[in-house]
């Protein structure tokens, strides 16, 4: 039996072609409280939401140079919640005046058999870490304040040690491509957080 022909055109529209707008910054441990107070006041009026996540980064090394990277993340506080698989593309090289980092983003919810499936497909886990902190929202914007910890024994999330003495602050928005007002709103929000934390566009390529 022949397999039915598969159209080569990729799926467009809907929730597939989403771009992630990102601004990052960091704040030292001792200044965390004031930042949290400030965020509590600026963001939507909700009880602050704590989270604890375990993220595994999978790499698929092909013949070409760049390996393909996928991030699988699960919640430690809510074990029954599904896993979250994320693909982040290359940052868009647009005009330099673009205020936030824009990259293509694909989000998929997955069941708890995700690590096995990825292993079967050929992905190999590159590294893993545990992120704990709080998240806030303001409209469509999400602010995540997290402390990253290194997992000492692979698979054991109890035994972790913090990577640094500071917290990572990320301001992100998921929006369809081509909306520039989003970065304006993000910048004005980031202005309000100065001088507690400076959120800026950090190109991951420059860090490597």
């Amino acid at each position: 039996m022949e397999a039915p022909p598969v159209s080569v055109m990729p799926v467009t529209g809907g929730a597939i072609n989403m771009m992630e707008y990102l601004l990052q910054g960091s704040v030292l441990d001792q200044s965390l409280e004031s930042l949290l107070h400030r965020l509590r006041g600026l963001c939507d009026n909700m009880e602050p939401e704590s989270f604890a996540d375990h993220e595994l980064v999978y790499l698929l090394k092909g013949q070409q140079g760049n390996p393909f990277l996928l991030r699988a993340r699960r919640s430690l506080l809510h074990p029954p919640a599904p896993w979250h698989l994320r693909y982040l593309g290359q940052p868009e090289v647009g005009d330099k005046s673009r205020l936030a980092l824009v990259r293509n983003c694909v989000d998929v919810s997955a069941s708890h058999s995700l690590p096995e499936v990825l292993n079967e497909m050929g992905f190999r886990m590159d590294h893993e870490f545990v992120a704990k902190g709080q998240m806030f929202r303001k409209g469509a914007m999400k602010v995540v304040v997290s402390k990253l910890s290194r997992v000492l024994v692979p698979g054991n999330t109890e035994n972790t040690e913090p990577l640094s003495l500071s917290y990572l602050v990320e301001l992100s928005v998921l929006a369809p491509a081509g909306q520039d007002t989003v970065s304006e709103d993000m910048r004005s929000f980031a202005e309000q957080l100065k001088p507690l934390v400076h959120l800026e566009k950090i190109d991951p390529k420059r860090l490597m």
Partner: protein
Amino acid sequence: MMSGAPAVRVSIESSCERQVQEVSLDGLETYAPPLSMSQNLAKLAQRIDFGQSSDEDEDGLERDSREQWSKPEAEEDEGMVKFQPSLWPWDSVRNNLRSALTEMCVLHDVLSVLKDKKYMALDPVSQDPSVGKTPQVFQLLSKKKSLATAAQLLLRGAEKLTKSVVENQEQRRQRDFNSELLRLRSQWKLRKVGDKILGDLSYRSAGSLFPHHGTFEVIKNTDLDLDKKIPDDYCPLNVQIPSELEGSAYIKVSIQKQSPDIGDLGTVNLFRRQAKAKPGSQMWHLKLEAAQNVLLCKEIFAQLSREAVQIKSQIPHIVVKNQIISQPFPGLQLSISLCHSTGEKKNQRASPDKSKPDDHLYVLEHNLHQLIREFHKQTLSSVVMPHPASAPFSHKRMRMAGPMAYDKTEISALQQSEGLLEKIIKQAKHIFLRSRTARTIDSLASRIEDPQIQAHWSNINDVYESSVKVLITSQGYEQICKSIQLQLNIGVEQIRVVHRDGRVITLSHQEQELQDFLLSQMSQHQVHAVQQLAKVMGWHVLSFSNHVGLGPIESIGNASAITVASPNGEYAISVRNGPESGCKVLVQFPRSQAKELPKSDVVQDAKWTHLRGPYKEVHWGRMEGRNFVYKMELLMAALTPCP
């Protein structure tokens, strides 16, 4: 005298100013009081040696004053002139004192010469009598002038005081801008952008997704004329709201009979409602609250119109300008309109349909506000927050849709099935149905006196369900005839009736159905009442049927019938009652009382005359008694002979 030793610091301090007069037993020192000015002067003056005369080269002024007496003494004093430079500042004092002494001596000499009256005599100086008495006009004028100067002084002082008070007040008012700003900040969200103070009056931080920015600007009120009196409601702070949010607005929900002309749509009268000003609240507060209300009404209306266009329903909703019209029931029209009056120019447009203010269903307007706030709260609930944190915002259960492979029905079951418009239409339907049911019951109760219909409405209701207990009774016989008790549950489109005997009947929204049903129940009640009465009176029920198949067909329900026999069996009463045909009562007499009895050869024995024979109809209308059961009781009593 100066030695080569290093310089020693010498500190000089004044000695104790006052001398200690005494030291009391508890160590308290009493100082001698310091000398006053005059005492000090006297002490110093004592040191002056007045025997020394002054020098020749002095100021000319002082020389002139001494010229009168110094001339005869000039020769004598020349030898005694001694310049005393230490007394130089006191020289004038000494000279004046000396001249005064000289004058006193001269006066003394003159008086002593006068005493003898030998060489000098005193003569009084003649006074001009006209000068002595000053005319009263002059006195008046002088008094007036003095009073005027005094008054002027006082007025000037008072003016200075009032000016300083006014200045203080003015300063306080100017300073009040900051305190007003503080008060504003305690109630509204403010932020500083450049040199402007902007605020946010939208519901976005409360969970709204309406795209209006809702920013207002805070400005200082500087148009104050200091010369004029400051008005009572003056506020140093003013807010500038976006032009589209000015004025006041409300959502009007009303149910009317269907208007025959569809061209009338869209002309909703802007019935201006005055905002009630709470005492003590500032202008800016009222302005901001009104603008926020306008924004919320716009959001509600935008949501309703979006749903009206998108949701498919059997009868489509019409959205015209600022009005949404839908048909909850045939012949009925529900209109939801956004009434926004800017308040600048009076809109005196007379609307074609002069709807009464009672037409406005305030409950539904309030419910609309509550529903949109519920919707806001849902976007802010923690159910939306993603775990793990990198996932996008979505409902907790929707995230499971992928891994659990939900199909379309499950996903649609998860999502919010009813929108704002549907909810409001359902509520409006229920309100209308409830009011119509009440009207039906009340009209029946007022129209029909026998039997009586009572309605007990339950206080606790739902937005979609109310209930009422209907009792059909006869006056005076409530305890005996209580077999017809109906519980009506009024829903959105139907009325569910639960009978006391357990039957459940569902009525539609038609008014006629309920009316017919109640009428049929009333007629059944009469027959039931006879049954209960028979038990009390000792009569025996021979037959009873709720729905007889004999006789003329009723258009509403069925007729019921009962036959009861007297205790001694001689008489029997048959009753047939129908909702339309009314009641028919027949009495069966014993054969002995019948007048025209056919003589038959078969029935010969006399004992057969005790059996009941022919029927005779009762003229029920001419019976005594105020209601059916009373009449029946009288009839039964009449047919039961005394033992």
